[in-house]
């Protein structure tokens, strides 16, 4: 176990280093003038020259890379000239909005997807299974930015029950005092229920938009995973000794089948970041993803570079945490006994981390 942890952490560190090299190559050594890219199209030649000096672009590539890493380690991501603010402080300011959106979307997506997938696996071939199967394909095929627009069209424009799709609160609502940065939690702490209601109303559509592809993906993964476990001996044993179907599903099959689902759920949270870029743009959400799209529109690329790097690093860290958690969950289930062969077989498959783990679900997450 200890060796496994050390090896995983080592591999992650290597990947993080490679990510920094890759982003350096893309952003600094690519054709074109990186200083012009960061300075913006309107900057004077003198300003570009000063930024070129600041970015050490006249130095050798090795020195440039060392300077690049030094900047990253010190959280120095440059300046967003179109907002006259340093990228670091912008990110700190914008992060809670994205985190709140992503948190609720992942809870809704994971719970909904796992539940639907498990119920469908318990009744293979039935109407419920087929309808949810088709719904999952539609959910996976839906472009999230388009889904957001359609939801705005229906719930705001036609039915009039959703608030104006701009920001996290209505203009007339006073924001609760800043504690966590999560408006729902802050307004609860302040006992301000009208602000809470307003925050939830603004969260509803973006959260649903972001959660649907995750739920669709996880419903397919869970269904395949639980169906596979249903074939195993310990399920037959459980049924033979008279365990009820519901208990077989939720206590035995889902529990063993949950391991690969957990890994894929964590990885789909990594993909949530790219979903957030699009959903925040549609709903004018003042988060990090929205910042990326605004900056692209303003040809201001320093914030975009920082966000690309943060997305990649978040993915690496989530990946590591899941792998380590997986070892913990795996060991606990093995201690319980009973399902050892299944667990061992599935864990081997997962440790090899072949994305083909569950056959039909690879590749398609969301765009």
């Amino acid at each position, binding site marked *: 176990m200890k060796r496994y942890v050390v090896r995983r952490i080592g591999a992650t560190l290597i*990947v993080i280093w490679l990510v920094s090299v890759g982003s350096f190559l893309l952003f600094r050594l690519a054709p074109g003038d990186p200083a012009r890219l960061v300075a913006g199209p309107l900057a004077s030649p003198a300003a570009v020259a000063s930024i070129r000096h600041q970015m050490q672009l006249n130095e050798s590539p090795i020195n440039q890379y060392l300077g690049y890493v030094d900047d990253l380690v010190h959280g120095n991501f440059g300046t967003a000239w179109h907002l006259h603010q340093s990228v670091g402080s912008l990110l700190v300011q914008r992060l809670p909005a994205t985190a709140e959106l992503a948190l609720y979307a992942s809870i809704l997506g994971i719970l909904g997807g796992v539940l639907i997938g498990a119920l469908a696996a318990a009744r293979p071939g039935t109407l419920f299974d087929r309808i949810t199967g088709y719904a999952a394909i539609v959910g996976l095929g839906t*472009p999230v930015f388009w889904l957001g627009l359609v939801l705005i069209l229906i719930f705001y424009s036609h039915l009039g029950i959703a608030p104006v799709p701009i920001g996290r609160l209505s203009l007339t609502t006073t924001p609760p005092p800043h504690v966590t940065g999560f408006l729902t939690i802050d307004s609860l702490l302040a006992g301000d229920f009208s602000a809470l209601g307003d925050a939830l109303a603004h969260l509803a559509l973006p959260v649903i938009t972001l959660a649907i592809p995750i739920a669709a993906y996880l419903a397919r993964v869970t269904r395949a995973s639980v169906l596979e476990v249903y074939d195993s001996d310990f399920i037959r044993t459980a049924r033979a000794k008279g365990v009820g179907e519901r208990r077989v599903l939720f206590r035995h099959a889902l529990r063993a089948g949950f391991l690969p689902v957990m890994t894929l759920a964590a990885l789909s949270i990594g993909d949530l970041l790219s979903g957030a870029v*699009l959903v925040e743009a549609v709903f004018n959400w003042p988060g990090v993803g929205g910042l990326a799209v605004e900056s692209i529109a303003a040809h201001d690329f320093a914030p975009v570079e920082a966000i690309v790097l943060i997305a990649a690093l978040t993915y*690496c860290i989530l990946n590591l945490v899941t792998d380590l958690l997986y070892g913990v969950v795996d060991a606990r289930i093995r201690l319980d006994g009973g399902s050892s062969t299944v667990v061992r077989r599935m864990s081997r498959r997962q440790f090899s981390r072949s994305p083909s783990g569950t056959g*039909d679900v690879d*590749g398609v997450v969301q765009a």
Partner: protein
Amino acid sequence: MSISVATMPELITPSWRERARRGDRRLIVPGGLFLFYLLAALIVPLVWPWGANAIHLGGRLQAPSFAHPFGTDEFGRDMVARFFTGARLSMLVGLSSVSIGGVIGMVIGSVAGLSGGILDAIVMRGLDTLLAFPALILGIAIALAIGPGVLAPAIAVTVASIPWYARRVRSEVLSLKTRTFFDAEKLMGWGRTHVLWHHVFPAVIDGVVVQASLAVGYAVLTVAALGYIGLGVQPPTAEWGSMIADGQTYLLTGQWWLAVIPGIGLLLLVALTIRLGDALAGRLAYSV
């Protein structure tokens, strides 16, 4: 668990013709619909009376009608012509990226799996690094580096798909390596190239095909997403993502069709390829 092709190569002996003769409805229906869609995307822009970029300022923002079944946009351009021109572009980029990515991924995965050792370790860390960049994020980064245009999304979806193929193929090669025929080949003195061409590629190609059919949809969605945020195909070229971005300006003023119809085109195409991927996976004895 599915019986993977790698562990039972006997199962892959039936030819494509035999498989077609068996007649799998699950494969024929989505496959036929996909071909139909593909043909429509190729033919409609050629025969349709309106051009995709023909501007008619007199006929701006017309609602769907007999003459313009999908309406017209803010420049009076016919949306049917733009829709199918966009479909052609999406399919072209989607299909070429999965074919190129599939071949590269298959070679990388096979060689890494066959070699093992330090080369395998290096390749795996490289693949992990690629996985850390989701296709959309990679597309943004590439568009910053080489400038927006059709190339940035095409490179991004191709590169982002490589680790998925390579990992899948590598794990199949690792299980192939444990089989007796593999040692027999070595004893007979066949080199690595022969083993690759005659044993590894034929055994893993089914997995690559299944992976590719599922990856087409992801690629198409990513290309559209990059077009939507303005880093993909540039105007006036008709592309679904940028059409949705243009159309959203008119979403709440009554001209909903401009943004809604291209999205339905995307949804149909991607759902169809996923369905086709499921059917292929079932046909080729992969678990569904």
